[in-house]
């Protein structure tokens, strides 16, 4: 169980360069680009699930989020240069439209809902043909299984505070296992998925500032949710919620950042309902 203290803001596309150079100066570290796939799962509606456990304690049904790293190379369709050095944060800047070179089918392969093509050439290391990076190449990447609470209530909260439970799924074995069959066995079904691409800065005291672009990828369409700008997320994770001193300190670090960026970027506490992962509160 970890507490995530956070503040959110937004930035338009045109301000990207200035913000990145500002943060590079402030943090003393270069930006780190990243991309991830998030899949969201809900309790199978076909099941009769009680709202209480055998001890008669109230347990609300919540979504489960499974996330896995995507390679930066999957964000660009131009594959002339094979050097990983090419994949810098400038990729993130170039992604302004709805389109990203990641297909719905590919994502479904990640969770094993669609079978991978039985392609005999796939094993051939010399084959340069396989242009769209197939999901099979990332079978080694683990999944993070996350269940998050609704952020803490309170009118005069200066930062958002959310309890997160997570475990890391390193691998799964057995005949015909896939993420879909595993989640199905647990009583969950797929709801939706999205892709996040962004840059992050690691600052002092565990403070992380991220610029994110998010795409909804559905069967029929791809849509950038953050069109025209970026979502800014500034957060610190605290391992022990009981460490009050640490929590207070962490809050002050976030508030300092908020003050520092004031007038340029406004970091604020988001509506806690927008971060509610419980079922039946949509």
């Amino acid at each position, binding site marked *: 169980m*970890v507490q995530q203290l956070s503040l959110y803001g937004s930035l338009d596309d045109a301000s990207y360069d200035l913000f990145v150079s500002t943060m590079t100066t402030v943090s003393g570290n270069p930006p780190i680009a990243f991309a991830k796939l998030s899949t969201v799962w809900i309790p199978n509606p076909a099941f009769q699930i*009680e709202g209480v456990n055998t001890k008669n304690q109230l347990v609300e049904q919540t979504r489960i989020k499974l996330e896995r790293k995507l390679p930066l190379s999957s964000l660009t369709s131009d594959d002339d240069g094979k050097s990983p050095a090419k994949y810098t944060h400038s990729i993130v800047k170039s992604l302004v439209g709805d389109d990203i070179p990641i297909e719905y089918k590919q994502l479904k392969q990640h969770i094993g809902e669609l079978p991978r093509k039985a392609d005999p050439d796939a094993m051939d290391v010399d084959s340069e043909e396989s242009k769209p990076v197939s999901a099979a190449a990332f079978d080694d990447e683990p999944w993070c299984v996350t269940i998050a609470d609704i952020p803490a209530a309170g009118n005069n909260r200066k930062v958002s505070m959310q309890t997160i439970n997570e*475990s890391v799924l390193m691998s799964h074995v057995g005949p015909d296992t896939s993420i879909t069959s595993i989640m199905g066995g647990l009583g969950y079904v797929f709801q939706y998925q999205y892709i996040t691409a962004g840059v992050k800065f690691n600052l002092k005291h565990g403070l992380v500032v991220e610029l994110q672009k998010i795409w909804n990828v559905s069967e029929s369409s791809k849509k950038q949710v953050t069109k025209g700008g970026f979502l800014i997320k500034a957060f610190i994770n605290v391992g022990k919620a009981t460490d009050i001193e640490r929590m207070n300190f962490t809050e002050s670090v976030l508030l300092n950042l908020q003050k520092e960026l004031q007038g340029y970027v406004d970091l604020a506490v988001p509506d806690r309902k927008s971060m509610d992962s419980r079922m039946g509160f949509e």
Partner: protein
Amino acid sequence: MPRTAVLFVERATPATLTDFKDSLANVLLSVEDGWSMEFRTYRTQIKNYPGDSSAKLMYSLNFSFERELSVMVKGQTALLLSSDAAAGALSADPRVQRLVDSDCSTGFPESFDNLLSSKLSNMWEQRQVLRGDAGESFRTMGYLVRCINVFSSTGFKGLAIQVEQDAGDDEAQLQDRIDEVKELLRGISITEFKVSSDRLTSSATKHSPNDYLCNLAHQYVRVMES
């Protein structure tokens, strides 16, 4: 990936372990570290969950010799889960670190048992916990034997013996080892036991080295579920 097998003697007494140790002494090379394990059974609370009663069960296994890893077993599927805190840990798996770097993980993962008991207890109820403490490990020629007395909350359940091949992937060789252990058991007049050397991993797919734990957990489930 080492091949493993698990034997379980239900008709044993806590002293059987000592007898087994004595008979093993002849082939013993060295005594290794102690160990412990936990075996939890979960049963689904979902009323219309499909399948027979065994389909409604799920098991979790934790071994002290792989402290940061735990295995969930459900039917013919095993999941390897890590609670290795990436933040600041030197031993951290680089793959866990990559999850943190790409904003998937906070860097404070916990065991899946925690998630089941805190967030999913309306769907999965923990039925029983079998514990083995103060287990012993013995190195013999080419393989490692771990044995442990397993207890439930009501009392002694039995003696579990785990055979782990040092290297190689030779099924016949492992069978020889199992036969040796069986012979030792017969030597102390134990004739009733359950054995499993089943594997969930297939040689056709690529597996990470730690996936042997999934096979091991599956074998424990096979011999200990009743």
